[in-house]
């Protein structure tokens, strides 16, 4: 499954929603995030993920500059490296955590015009990381016979 696709993010949302026991200890999170993956500069893939409580309620393909609380924007290769690390190790490690990647900002950049929205990246960081880490199970299911 391509990571720059709506089905991939829909699968991540389904994975989150079917495992509340993973998210309950982290607590509820309300945030509206746009993930942007750039492969061809003129045609980026962008998806809005709307989190409410311990669920990801919506994943919708949107324009890359669509309004949101915060945006994570980077080349597809950087996202692929992150998801490859998650798939290989079960969770993001080292400098492949979303916080590391967005902090360094060399590839994946944290953006948004409102500091209150940007701070939600920090407030709900572990929920977002767990959401991305769900890719280890989504991608494992894909290759399973």
């Amino acid at each position, binding site marked *: 499954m391509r990571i720059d696709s709506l089905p991939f993010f829909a699968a991540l949302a389904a994975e989150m929603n079917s495992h509340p026991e993973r998210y309950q200890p982290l*607590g509820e999170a309300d945030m509206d995030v746009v993930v942007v993956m750039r492969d061809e500069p003129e045609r980026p893939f962008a998806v809005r993920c709307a989190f409410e409580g311990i669920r990801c309620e919506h994943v919708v393909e949107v324009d890359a500059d669509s309004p949101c609380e915060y945006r994570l924007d980077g080349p597809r290769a950087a996202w692929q490296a992150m998801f490859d690390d998650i798939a290989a190790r079960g969770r993001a490690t080292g400098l492949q955590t979303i916080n590391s990647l967005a902090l360094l900002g060399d590839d994946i950049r944290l953006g948004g015009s409102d500091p209150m929205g940007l701070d939600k990246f920090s407030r709900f960081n572990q929920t977002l990381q767990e959401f991305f880490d769900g890719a280890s199970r989504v991608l494992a299911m894909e290759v399973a016979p």
Partner: protein
Amino acid sequence: MSEPKDYSNLPTMSPLGAPLDWAWLRGAKSEWGVHPKPSPRGLTMLDIASGSYGEVPDHPAHRSMAPRGADIEAGTPDMGYILNDKADVWAENTRELYEEAVARQWSATRDIPWGELRELDDDVEHAMCQLCTLLTEVEMIAADLPAKWMWRMNHEFIEAKMFLCTQIMDEARHAEVFRKRALANGGGLLLSRNGATSLLRTIIEAKSYTQATALMHLLGEGFVLDLFRMGELIAPSDVEKRIFRMCMQDEARHVAYGTMHIRYSVEHDPDVAEEIHEALDHGEMVLTEFGTAPDVSTALAVLLAGGVEHVEDKGFPLSLEMTKKQFTSYLARCERAGISRVERTKIPLDLLGIDIESIRSAGRAA
């Protein structure tokens, strides 16, 4: 709801001869039957903020501990509150942040994989312990300061007080987790210098709560929030990374309250802006002195470099980059809070390479 019964023949004296009062059963004037509906996550403080119970007065008539919305008896004692205007303490996100805080509590005992700590090089362990010494020291100011002011806050602003209670618990946990880390890996607590206490004293001695919250939530905790974010680069192992990430989430709530409280305050009482600016003029200077103190900057640089060997070619440059991010975030939050510091600050923005336009856009986003 069932029909009221006939309460007219209830006894007036107890079996022991004491007078009985049935006013609560048949005469209270408070709103009855609001029946808030639980949201999917349960019955939240936002859910019960309905009818008269959700109305927070700008200038409460009472100064007692009577719950907001209750039918309050005349002559209730004055508790001596001095923060009696909503603008003194309120933020529009107070209830949301309280619920978030309750839902996202964690345990420094249970939720950190202490068993995975591994032996570090001597210089890195020392640097980590020095940073933990500092953080154990500074974190408790964000507990002491709300505690200093909470008993002076009018009880009608109960949600703000409740949120600050969660902050106090958060900070106790932060002091706990950094103290535990300092001791857990063969090291210990190291040097506590004058600079930290000078900064903390500036915060605790602020003349008003709004000045105090500007210094603590916006300036102090804002900087610590960005330091925790940078834990990804500072942390020598996944154990410390987890500590920083968990603390980061808590700290971001405190900053969110402070930013929106300052905004609410300035919007409802524009005169308070100058008072905040004066506090931040001084606070920025003290924080800069503290942040550039030789012991703090060297410990951070060693952690960023992964040891003393690369402290000059890697540690200090990364440290400078961190400082730039901290000031950028702080100034953007000031814009969001409605107290632009761009023209007034003495922070050398050009020297740090801070993009002023990106900061100003934060204010326009509000």
